[in-house]
C-alpha cells in the first residue's frame, strides 16, 4: 500500500492535510493536533495532502503495484 509519512516536528497542526483528503484516508487527532493516517490502504495517491502542506511536513510514497485494480479481469 501507499506510505504516508508525517514529520511531527515540522507539522504545525494546521489541519490542511486532513481537509485536503477527498476520501477519508486521513483522520485528525484533536488532542495532539496531528494527522492520523487511518486508512492508507485506500489512498489513491492524489497527492493533495502533500502538495497543500505549507510546512513540507508530509510525504506520500505511492506503491502502484498494490493499488486495488482488477488486473486479471480486463477483457
Amino acid at each position, binding site marked *: 500500500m501507499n506510505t504516508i509519512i508525517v514529520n511531527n516536528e515540522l507539522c504545525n497542526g494546521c489541519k490542511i492535510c*486532513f*481537509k*485536503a*483528503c*477527498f*476520501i*477519508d484516508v486521513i*483522520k*485528525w487527532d484533536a488532542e495532539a493536533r496531528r494527522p492520523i493516517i*487511518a*486508512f492508507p*490502504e*485506500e489512498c*489513491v*495517491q*492524489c*497527492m*493533495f495532502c*502533500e*502538495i*497543500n502542506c505549507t510546512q513540507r511536513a508530509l510525504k506520500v510514497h*505511492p506503491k*502502484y*503495484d498494490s*493499488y*486495488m*485494480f*482488477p*488486473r*486479471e*479481469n*480486463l*477483457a
Partner: protein
Amino acid sequence: MSQYTTADVLIVGGSIAGLAAAITAKEHDPSLNVTVVEKYTSGYAGKANRGAGVILVLGESTPEEFAQFYLRHIGMYLNNQRALLQYASMLNSNVEILDKWSGRIVKDENGKVRTSKWTSGPVARNEDGTLRFAETVEYPWELATVDLDYVLKIYGYARRKGVKFINRVGMVDLLTDDGRIAGIVGYDIDDGTQRVLTAKSVVLACGNQDWRVSPMWSPARGEGISAAFRIGARFVNCEFGSFYNWISLENFESEMGAEYALYNDKGENIGLRTVKDVHSDINAESLAEWYKQTVAGNGPMHHRVRENPLLPSLESMMDAEVMRARPFATRFWNTLMFNAFSQKTNDEVVPGLVGEFGGLWVDEDMATTVPGLFAAGDICVQGSRAWGAVAQPGRHRGSGIAFGTYSGRVAGPSAATYAAGAQVPIAHDEQITAIDARFNAPLNSDGSLKPLELVAEIQKVMQPVGNSLYRHEQRLRSALARIEDLKALLPQLWATDPHHAFGANEVAAMLLCSEMFFKASLERRESLGWFLREDCPEPSPDGPHWVIVENEEGQVSVSKQRVPLEDYPYQP
C-alpha cells in the same frame, strides 16, 4: 443523539457544481438560508480540482454551430436538444463567472481569457494513407484553463456571500413529505452522529458512480444516485455510464491519444483503423478493437508514444505561459507525473474503467422527477440528455468543469425559486428511523465481510471491456447475475466505525448502479455512438430512443421512450 438543522435550499456536495448552485441560489434570493453539506471538506472535495483544469468554451462558434456538430458526430441525436443548446449558450459565460468567483482563470496581458483550439483529430489522409494533422482543426469549441486551487477560492467566495457550510457530514438518504422533498439524513463521518437536515428544496451535487476503479475518480461512489432511486426519482441513459481511458497498469495515469499509436504484440497498428476523420477524443471502437485483439491472443497492446500525433498539440495546449500562470496545477501535475513515470517500465496500455455513471433524470431547469429535488454536476450528466449517445466526458475534454458550472448555475436559481414558494416540509420520524436502521446495520452485524472485499468483487464485474463497453447479451446476463449474487452478500457487511459504515453504504450504491447499468444495457439492442453491442452491431431501425430506469416497488425497472425529434430544431 440526532442533530436537527433547517435550511431553505440544501445543496449536497461542496465541489464545483454544488458551489455554483449555492452561490447562484443565494444571489437569486439573498433572504434564503442556503446550506451546503459536504461529506469531506468543501473546496478540497470532489474531482473538479484534480483534473487537467481545462474548461470547454465556444470561442467564436455559435451555440447553434456547436449543437449541430455535436448532434451529428457525437450525440447521434439522442440528445435533449433544448438542454444541449442551453448548455452551449452558457459555455462562454461560465468562464467569466468562474473568474469572478475565483480569479484563477488564465488570462493574457490584456485581461482576456486565454484559449487554445482543440486539435485532437486528423484533418485528412495523405496519399500513402497515413493521417494528416493540422494545428487548428475546425472543432466548434476551444479550451480555457484554470489553476486547480480555484474550487477553494470559490468556497471562500460562497462563504462571504452568506452560504452556510456543514463539512464532514455524508448524506445517506433523502427525506420526503407527501411526495415532495423534505431534506436529508446524513452522518458525521468522524464520530457517526446522525444529522437530520430539513429543507424546502435540495440540490444533489454529490457526484456520480465510478466504482473506485480509477484512482483519481475514487470519491464518486454513487450514494446520491442510490438515495434518489430509493425515493422514486427517474433515471435515463444509464447504459452510457462506462467511460474508459487508455491507462498504464503500472501507474493508472491516462495515455491520451493512444488509439493513434496502438500496436498489438505482433507489431501491427490496430488503433488507426478505428480513427475517423472527425475524432474529437477517444472512441469506443478503438477500445473494442483492444478487446478483439486480446481475445484473439494478440495481446498485450502497446502504446508507441513517439508515434502519437496528439502529443505535440497536448504539449502546446499546456504551453509555458499557461503553466507559469498556474502554480498550483503545475505543482500538482509535476508531482503526479514524477511519481507515475519514475515507476513506469513498459509501454503496455489497457482500457481502464473510469465509469462516470450519472443518469439522474433532470429537465432544463435541473429538476428531477421528485418535486423539490434538483441536481447538478456529474450525477446528472447523462440524465440531462444534453450530450446524447456518449459517455462522460462526452468526447469533448474540458466538459466536466463546464457542465458542473453550467448545471449549478441553472439548478441554484431553480431550487431557490421552488423554496421561495414552498411550505416548510415535515421530516417524518418513521423515515428517519428506517434510514438509521439501514445505515447502522453493518455496525450491529454479526457478519465478517469488509466493504473493500466486496468492492474488489464488484470491480471484477465492472472493469471488463466485454461487460461494460463491447457488450453482448450473454455477457450482460452473466454480469447481472453476478451482481445479484453480490447483492445477497450485503447483510454480511461488517463495520466497526463510521468510516466502514459509510463504506457499506457505498457498496450498496455501487451494486445498485451496476444493476441499473446492466439492465439498461440489455434494453438497448443496438450500437450507437459510445454504446456498442457485439450482438447488435447496427443502430436500431426504430430511431433514437432513451432507456428509462425507474424504481418499481424497490426493483430496477426499464422501459423505452422515443426521442421526440419533432419537438426539436435539428433532424438527423
